[in-house]
């Protein structure tokens, strides 16, 4: 496997011949200069729902024919020789914190399978459904199993919506066979202009704000009754009872004075920090993610999109039509501002070295722009990224070919990405977990990329 680690490659190219420095010597020298690697204590997963174009984000192809490279130009980043799309100029300034992977690929061209694969690290077997307890657990659920929070703090939180395609909720966001206790708590981000488009609210989402505005709640039983009323009718699935019970207990814990309750109240954040993230649910979700990590939540997932892809309208990354207009005007500006704000904020608060930020998406987009000015699904190759949490920034792992059609080097799978996350989080990717019937499963069948 070829490792295109820019700093190392450039160094080797320039000096191996001259000074006769051997690779092991260099590696030893490098190891000595970098402080001991720390394990990340928290993880923020940023999911660009619908499939983010690699061309118009981390892997522009300026040399490709015009019908492939598209309308946008590349720009320089803070890392010499690495270019991003011109519409993420703020993120480009943070490239020294990012490890970009340009060679992820799989072969599932449907959203349902691709989401499942990217969130669980496993291929779907047979029919999958969102509430299924035979599903593999989400990466957030697995992390929360190994990184236990203190009492009253949820192990995993996701926001601001569940993912839907044509009214069908996607599988892979829940805990599956790990059991309802590990289902991430869905939270509605309390501020920011909502994404345009449809968002489904039939999952029990916690709106702590409603309760924050009430007088301080001290009576647990009354609170549980209130929660039952607001959550009760929404659950129609077979696991409802188990889920609801865990859910309401956790909700009650949070409302009764956990640090999470305070974190959720974005009104207490400095207005200028809020402005830095952007007055949009995308930006405010990432701000809330930082605050939840500060409050001791081990893993937070933020979906950068509205909930339902149906009809092609709205702010999602499934840009089959009018791709360039949507990317330039609706999607990339929010993504650029929110992500760069998160990286700035984590860095200046001294949180970045213990907080792993991971960017995931369904798949890339097709090389050829279609008749509707859109790009279609392309799992053949796509890009993702890591930041913080012991990841060495300023590197690119793997490459796509000159037209962005398939990996040219460093081909890797969503499972390899998961193994990398687990390694950064100090979790053995070969660890076994047990389902509800105590059957053992090895959590991941990928290999960590050599970027941690």
């Amino acid at each position, binding site marked *: 496997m070829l490792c295109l680690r820019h700093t190392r490659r450039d160094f080797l190219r320039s000096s191996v011949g001259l000074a006769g420095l051997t690779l092991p010597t260099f590696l030893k020298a490098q190891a000595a200069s970098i402080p001991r690697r720390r394990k990340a204590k928290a993880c923020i997963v940023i999911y660009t729902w619908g499939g983010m174009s690699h061309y118009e984000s981390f892997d522009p192809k300026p040399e490709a024919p015009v019908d492939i490279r598209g309308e946008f130009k590349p720009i320089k980043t803070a890392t010499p020789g690495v270019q991003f799309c011109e519409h993420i100029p703020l993120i480009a300034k943070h490239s020294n914190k990012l490890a970009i992977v340009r060679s992820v690929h799989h072969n599932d061209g449907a959203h349902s399978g691709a989401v499942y694969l990217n969130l669980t690290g496993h291929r779907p077997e047979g029919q999958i459904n969102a509430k299924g307890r035979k599903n593999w657990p989400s990466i957030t659920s697995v992390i929360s199993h190994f990184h236990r929070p203190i009492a009253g703090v949820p192990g995993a939180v996701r926001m601001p919506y569940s993912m839907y395609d044509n009214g069908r909720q996607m599988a892979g966001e829940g805990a599956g066979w790990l059991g309802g206790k590990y289902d991430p708590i869905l939270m509605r981000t309390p501020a920011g202009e909502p994404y345009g488009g449809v968002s489904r609210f039939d999952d029990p989402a916690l709106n702590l704000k409603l309760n924050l505005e009430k007088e301080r709640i001290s009576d647990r039983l009354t609170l549980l009754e209130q929660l039952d009323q607001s959550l009760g009718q929404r659950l129609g699935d077979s696991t409802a009872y188990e889920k609801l019970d865990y859910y309401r207990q956790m909700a009650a814990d949070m409302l009764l004075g956990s640090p999470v309750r305070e974190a959720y109240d974005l009104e207490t954040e400095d207005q200028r920090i809020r402005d830095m993230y952007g007055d949009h649910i995308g930006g405010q979700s990432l701000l809330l993610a930082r605050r939840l990590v500060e409050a001791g939540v081990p893993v937070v997932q933020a979906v950068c999109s509205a909930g339902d892809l*149906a009809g092609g309208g709205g702010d999602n990354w499934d840009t089959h039509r*009018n791709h360039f207009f949507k990317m330039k005007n609706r999607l990339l500006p929010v993504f650029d501002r929110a992500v760069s704000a998160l990286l700035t904020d984590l860095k200046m608060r001294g949180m970045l070295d213990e907080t792993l930020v991971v960017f995931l998406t369904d798949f890339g987009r097709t090389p050829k722009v279609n008749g509707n000015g859109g790009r279609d699904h392309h799992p053949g190759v796509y890009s993702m990224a890591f930041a913080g949490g012991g990841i060495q920034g300023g590197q690119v792992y793997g490459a796509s070919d000159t037209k962005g059609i398939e990996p040219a080097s460093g081909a890797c799978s969503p499972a390899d990405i998961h193994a990398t996350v687990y390694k950064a989080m100090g979790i053995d990717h070969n660890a076994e977990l047990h389902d509800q019937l105590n059957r053992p499963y090895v959590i991941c069948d990928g290999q960590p990329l050599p970027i941690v």
Partner: protein
Amino acid sequence: MIRLLLIIAGMLGGQAFGQAFGQADDQAAIDSIKKNGGLVLPSSEGENQWDIQFQLRGRDLTDAGLADVAKLGNVVELNLRDTKITSDGLVHLKGLAKLTRLHLERTNVGDEGIANLARLNALEYLNLYGTKITDKSLDHLAGLKKLRQLYIWQTDVTDDGIAELKKALPAISIEKGIELTTVIPVKKEEPKPEHDLKWLQDGGDEKPPAKSITGEFTIIRFINKRDKAVKLFWIDYGGKPMFYGIIEPGDERRQNTYEDAVWMVADQRDMPLGYFVTGREFARAIIPR
């Protein structure tokens, strides 16, 4: 091994068990830290070393409570973020020779407290953002040869102070953060309507579609030029009118919608006056006199 024994001791609920192995002092300190809301976690750095965190449940910690941390000794990580400690309390940290990572951010500590850290030679990470420190604190840190990460956002440390410390500690990375006054909120540019939608008079020759179809997101500015208020309805995907609001005479309404949507304008008695059909572009919809 000792860590394991301590855990077993804890599980048996027996301080006596710990005492038998000479860990009584540690156990008493741990109990006291926990009573103050602190978490005592075995550090991943090595055996019998502690990662102590007060920032989640122990924010009421005061200076006196830090004496327990000093008693415990083998502390490699200590997080005091958001606690009520002051400079006076830091005297208790003087002897923590193994401390590699110290969080003091968002507390009331100042220069006189930081003087107590001058001999913490194992320190690699020190977070002081949002404290009362100045350049004087940086003088106290100049001898900490292992210090690699220093956070001073929202303090009175100056660029000169940073330059001085970098002379003493060339390998250090000092994070100054951003000046919040430079944050410029995104101006929400109201999209300029590119054209006017056609008014389809009720009962006229040109009929609107029976229902909306969903498409790309767009924004329509409805402008009521009539001398009476009108009611605005969206004709949904099944052809049913859904009431959205009233537009007073001369008023405007900015409406998020999608292309190929049908909007009906009616009078106050819900009698249809006319229709607009949206396109992809942002547009004006002028309700005529």
